[in-house]
């Protein structure tokens, strides 16, 4: 049986993120929190602080309007 | 060696366009340009072309633009009211450099005007009809043979300079029957079609705002926008001598008085000049074949000794104003109502001037 790879980390691109926080609001297990790092666009960047809660639903990646989110999987 | 045939101006235009490689026509019925659409509907499918009767002139010109972008030479034909509707499409083709031929068979205007009578009232609209600053090429055939040849010239100019070209004619020329010569394929030069091409492994980007050479929008940058627009304008302005054509006759003895006209009015002008010459008056004849860009340089150099120009035309005196800017003493003979100026009318005025 092929096991799905685990989520190692979730990268947020600081050039692209415009701070709409759809990822923060829509994550079903509240992995994201708004940090106090300011991105290139001028918005506070979200951060995947509670990565251990991630269930790999993929909603953050699907919903990001600026393609700033990359889910990095591995073993 | 080609063949001779008797046909209507509209049919000559259609046959010329097909000779030049036009294979897409979208139109809308409008008097007096409906025959062009009907001939196209009959003749285009026989050579593998596509005819579409669109839901309105706006759809017609946009479909032709789509066809031109996708790889086929395209043409649209209309008259005054439809020409007003097509102006945004003409601006689109100018800005995005899309080769296209637009035929305007002028009728009495403005608004619904005189649907079945000729005029030359759209000469300024052909030049300045769309919004914005731009240059455009406008050709005016004077007889049915020229309807054939200028259709090919219009297609060639549009491909060479990547611009829309307007073929401005009148109802009377479109409905006139004359014997013309049709060359064999290959006898008259035809240029190939140009389309936007993908670059560097990615598709082309055709933008309607002012754009740079890659297609990216530069509308918010004043310097780049000015550069982009001046390039489009100078594309035509720097090549006026290669684009513009005029027909000058009876000027061997450098007359001081010329009768200048274009389109169907030029036929009466030529008859008047011949009448005057037979009576011994020194008068020359000038016919504009290219209306815009206005061939100022060529006119000045061919009309060496001219001081007075008489301009008969079937509108309120538009081209007479343009001749005035060249510094000549201009006598405008505007004629409204839908009848061509007669040789006698022009003869009477000219004799008054020459005496």
């Amino acid at each position, binding site marked *: 049986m092929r096991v799905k790879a685990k989520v190692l980390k979730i990268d947020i691109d600081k*050039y*692209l993120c*415009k*701070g*709409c*926080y*759809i990822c*923060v*609001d*829509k994550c079903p297990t509240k992995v994201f929190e708004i940090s106090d790092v300011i991105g290139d*666009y001028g*918005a506070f960047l979200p951060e995947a602080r509670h990565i251990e809660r991630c269930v790999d639903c993929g*909603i953050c*990646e*699907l*919903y*990001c*309007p*600026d*393609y700033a*989110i*990359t889910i990095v999987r591995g073993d | 060696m080609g063949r001779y045939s008797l046909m209507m101006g509209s049919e000559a235009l259609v046959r010329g366009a097909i000779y030049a490689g036009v294979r*897409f026509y*979208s139109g809308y019925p409008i008097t007096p340009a409906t025959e062009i659409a009907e001939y196209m509907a009959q003749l285009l*499918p*026989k*050579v*593998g*072309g*596509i005819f*579409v009767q*669109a*839901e*309105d002139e*706006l*759809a017609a010109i*946009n*479909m*032709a*633009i*789509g*066809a*031109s*972008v*996708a790889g*086929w030479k395209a043409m649209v034909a209309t008259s005054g009211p439809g020409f007003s509707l097509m102006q*945004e*499409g003409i601006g*689109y083709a100018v800005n995005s450099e899309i080769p296209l031929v637009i035929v305007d068979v002028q009728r009495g205007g403005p608004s619904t005007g005189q649907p079945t009578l000729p005029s030359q009232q759209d000469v300024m609209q052909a030049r300045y009809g769309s919004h914005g600053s731009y240059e455009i090429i406008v050709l005016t055939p004077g007889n049915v043979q020229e309807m054939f040849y200028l259709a090919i010239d219009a297609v060639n100019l549009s491909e060479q300079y990547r611009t829309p070209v307007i073929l401005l004619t009148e109802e009377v020329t479109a409905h006139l029957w004359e014997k013309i010569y049709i060359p064999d394929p290959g006898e008259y030069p035809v240029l190939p079609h140009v389309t*936007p091409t993908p670059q*560097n492994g*990615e*598709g*082309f*980007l*055709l*933008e*309607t*705002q002012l754009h740079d050479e890659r297609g*990216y929008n530069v509308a918010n940058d004043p310097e780049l926008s000015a550069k982009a627009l001046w390039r489009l304008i100078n594309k035509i302005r720097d090549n006026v001598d290669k684009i513009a054509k005029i027909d000058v006759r009876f000027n061997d003895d450098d007359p001081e008085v010329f009768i200048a006209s274009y389109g169907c009015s030029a036929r009466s002008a030529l008859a008047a000049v011949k009448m005057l010459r037979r009576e011994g008056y020194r008068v020359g004849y000038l016919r504009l074949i290219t209306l815009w860009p206005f061939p100022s340089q060529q006119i000045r150099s061919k009309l060496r000794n001219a001081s007075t120009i008489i301009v008969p035309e079937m509108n309120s005196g538009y081209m007479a104003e343009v001749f005035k800017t060249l510094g000549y003493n201009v006598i405008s003979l505007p004629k409204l109502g839908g009848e061509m100026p007669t040789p006698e009318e022009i003869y009477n005025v000219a004799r008054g001037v020459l005496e």
Partner: protein
Amino acid sequence: MNPLIQKYLRSEYAQKRRRTIFCPGCGNGIILGYFIRAIDELKREGKFDDSKLYIVTGIGCSGNTPIPLKYNIVRALHGRALSVATGIKLVRPDAEVVVFAGDGDLLSIGGNHFIHTIRRNVGVKVILINNMLYGMTGGQVAPTTPMNAITHTTPYGNPEPPLDACKLAVSLGATYVARWTVALAKQCIQSIKELLLHKGFGLLECLSQCPVYQGRYIIGIDRPSKIMDYYLKITEISSEPRYGEKITIGKFVDYEKPTYEEVIWSMINRIKVMNNEG
């Protein structure tokens, strides 16, 4: 940048020299992501050839959606995207033509072309991004704005009832009509895949969000995720299109009939043969 999306963008965007023009939380960016993912899935299944893809777009925020893509993009005038797409499809019937347009572009100034393109069944695929107003010009009323809504040109309430684009398309005889919201990712991607494989005219209406104007004026919330929740509240699945207090979503129609380019090309081939024999 997300590497899957980066593969499909033009160099200026893929190399991060330019950002998209969308506001934070705009639905257009999400829909572009769905489009790219749909094409990627179809290509991996071997069912789609994207070398002959033409994208025709209109004017406005929704018309700017596909600009970052690396395919052939033809921008048309306001409302005329369907006419340009018809011209392209007739001349290149083997090419795939996708039209991105907004609700004001396609249904207001482009309404006449909408009717006739569907009537002819031209094989173009339309992705209608419906944010219920004119976004780029600052939030004015559009044919799809709900009645009594406040917008910049209806400060006392919208006096006009809205138009249901899907119902109009179904009644004109469109062969594929579906409506989803931007929150329903899997359904949107599936619909785009079906649209690209469908033969004939196809319309996918995607209820999208404009947090800056639609959110603040019509709905009353400007947090983008809350607008997505609002859409989940006012929509319900049905097989009949309705657009009023509740908006129905789902796939309404999916069948096939002869397309315009098929009819025209078979006629041309028949006449060419007759002409050569005569």
